[in-house]
């Protein structure tokens, strides 16, 4: 590239008209005062024809509304407005662009001129539109979740990993009031007797990423204490990190009350059975004591007689019979002793 060509390409008029950016100057009422060739080419309208148009007239209707309601007052109040996403009408369709504008005022503070650059972002806009679609889809999913969570009979809520409450369904608002908590330690819906124990358990679950599942007494706007089964499970994202905790609670007051009533009844029955058992044990002990005494008296006599016989000189043929008799008597004595000490009761 020779020097003349370089100088030509650095000429300010050339730069203004040929740089790959649109330039437009307009009066605050929208009259277009100057545009460059690049912008004219993008619009597919000659520069002379553009001068016959109002700035709002080259925007599509949505952008013109937005410009009139938001950007126009903004440029009156401050001197710049940056990266405004607008859509221009062109002879071949529409052009998505970012507008950076600077406004100028006269000595009396009246707005007199707006200079703006226009950067074409059609491809980027397509990607942005796809992102927006995704965002809307996510918002729709959120609405769907909230709708579903309001139709089920359970109380449903979500909590951020730091313990901040993100969402509560209508059932919770109905039961505990409009804004029951922002953070778990602020929640006063748990009955005082269970509160500290629950906070401690929940804190442990958050630290260990374990499921929280407990039966808890809670008190709502009715001030009535009721039993709930509360379960809070961590939701892990694809990276394996907890994104949020999903909580649900079910009113189990009727079942729990019944269970408590049945337990009390069972305890009473068991106490009664234990008492009967103890009485029977005592009776058996008394019988055993009496029977033992009655049987052991003749046995004691036999044992005494055996001792006397031991001192006699018995014929050798009788000595074997004597030994057999003594062993049997001793076994009988042992058996009676065992029978008279049931359940580890020592009778001696």
């Amino acid at each position, binding site marked *: 590239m020779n020097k003349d060509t370089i100088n030509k390409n650095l000429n300010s008029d050339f730069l203004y008209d040929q740089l790959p950016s649109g330039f437009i100057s307009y009066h605050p009422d929208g009259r277009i005062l100057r545009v460059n060739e690049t912008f004219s080419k993008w619009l597919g309208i000659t520069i002379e024809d553009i001068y016959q148009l109002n700035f*709002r007239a080259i925007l*599509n209707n949505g952008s013109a*509304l937005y410009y009139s*309601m938001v950007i126009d007052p*903004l440029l009156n*109040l401050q001197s710049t407005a*940056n990266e405004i*996403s607008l859509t221009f009408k062109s002879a071949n369709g529409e052009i998505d662009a970012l507008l950076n504008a600077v406004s100028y005022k006269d000595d009396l503070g009246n707005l007199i001129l707006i200079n703006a650059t226009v950067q074409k972002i059609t491809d980027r*806009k397509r990607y942005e539109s796809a992102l927006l679609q995704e965002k809307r889809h996510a918002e729709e999913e959120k609405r769907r979740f909230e709708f579903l969570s309001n139709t089920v009979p359970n109380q449903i809520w979500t909590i951020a990993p730091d313990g901040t409450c993100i969402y509560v369904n209508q059932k919770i608002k109905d039961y505990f009031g409009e804004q029951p908590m922002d953070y778990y330690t602020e929640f006063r819906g748990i009955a005082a007797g269970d509160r500290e124990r629950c906070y401690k358990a929940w804190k442990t679950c958050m630290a260990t990423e374990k499921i929280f599942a407990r039966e808890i007494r809670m008190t709502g706007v009715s001030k009535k204490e009721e039993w709930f089964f509360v379960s809070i499970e961590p939701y892990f994202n694809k990276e394996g990190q907890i994104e949020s905790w999903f909580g649900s609670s079910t009113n189990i007051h009727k079942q729990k009350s019944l269970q408590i009533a049945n337990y009390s009844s069972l305890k009473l029955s068991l106490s009664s059975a234990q008492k009967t058992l103890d009485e029977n044990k005592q009776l058996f002990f008394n019988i055993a004591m009496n029977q033992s005494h009655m049987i052991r008296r003749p046995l004691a006599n036999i044992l005494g007689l055996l001792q006397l016989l031991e001192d006699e000189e018995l014929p050798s043929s009788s000595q074997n019979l004597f030994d057999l008799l003594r062993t049997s008597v001793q076994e009988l004595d042992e058996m009676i002793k065992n029978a008279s000490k049931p359940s580890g009761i020592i009778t001696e």
Partner: protein
Amino acid sequence: MLLIPKNMSNNAIVRNNVKILGQGTETLLFGHGFGCDQNTWRSILPAFEKDYRLIVFDYVGAGSSDLSAYTDERYSSLDGYAQDIIEICSELQLQDITFIGHSVSSMIGLLAVKQAPQFFRNIIFIGPSPRYLNDDGYKGGIDASDLNDLLDVMDSNYLGWSRMVAPLIMANEEDPQLAQSLTASFCATDPEIAKKFARVTFLSDNRKDLSLLNIPSLTIQCEEDFLTSKVVADYIQQHIPDNRLVMLPSKGHCPHLSDPQGVINAIKSFI
């Protein structure tokens, strides 16, 4: 200067970021339109400061209002926004006020007068429209498809919103106190709420409410306004008893910004 009476309920005052200025006894209450906040009034407030008590506020979702106060249930129609105005009037114990509403605030003000007429003496509409969408025999100027396009543009500008409305120090050499008393960020509106507000605004239809207005009213309209038109201004005149119309030669939807003197003159000649 904030002149909120002591020992009174101030839910709406805090929620709607209410500011009170001026030294007069007669009250002018200003309601901003869609897309901006109370800062939109900065060019015309100094002209009324000496003689009037001026009250500006942000609708819930706009400016420095309490965003947490927004509920779909309340703000799913313009009546919810009208309720904001009524609650401000009630908490400040206002009487005989002139309400000045820009754009959609015109009809919000109309609904407030309809629901609680005891607070109002006059009402001024700037660029009003009782219905933006075209209908059989009625030319509101906007088609239903335009609303979808607008919501698409708002979505596209979602990420750039905060950068676009980056806080700046507002220069007002004539009255630095006024500058300080207003917030330093312009037209900051929560994008999600703004989209819902846009939908509520453009789907509203208050044509039947026009004839119920029974206090003097003034319509200030630009010759060329993308969002409304002379036809709409005429429709309002035909249906509101005792409505005056001032057509300004300026163009655009925000004459209080583009032609503040024209708006000031029109308001002063009316009140």
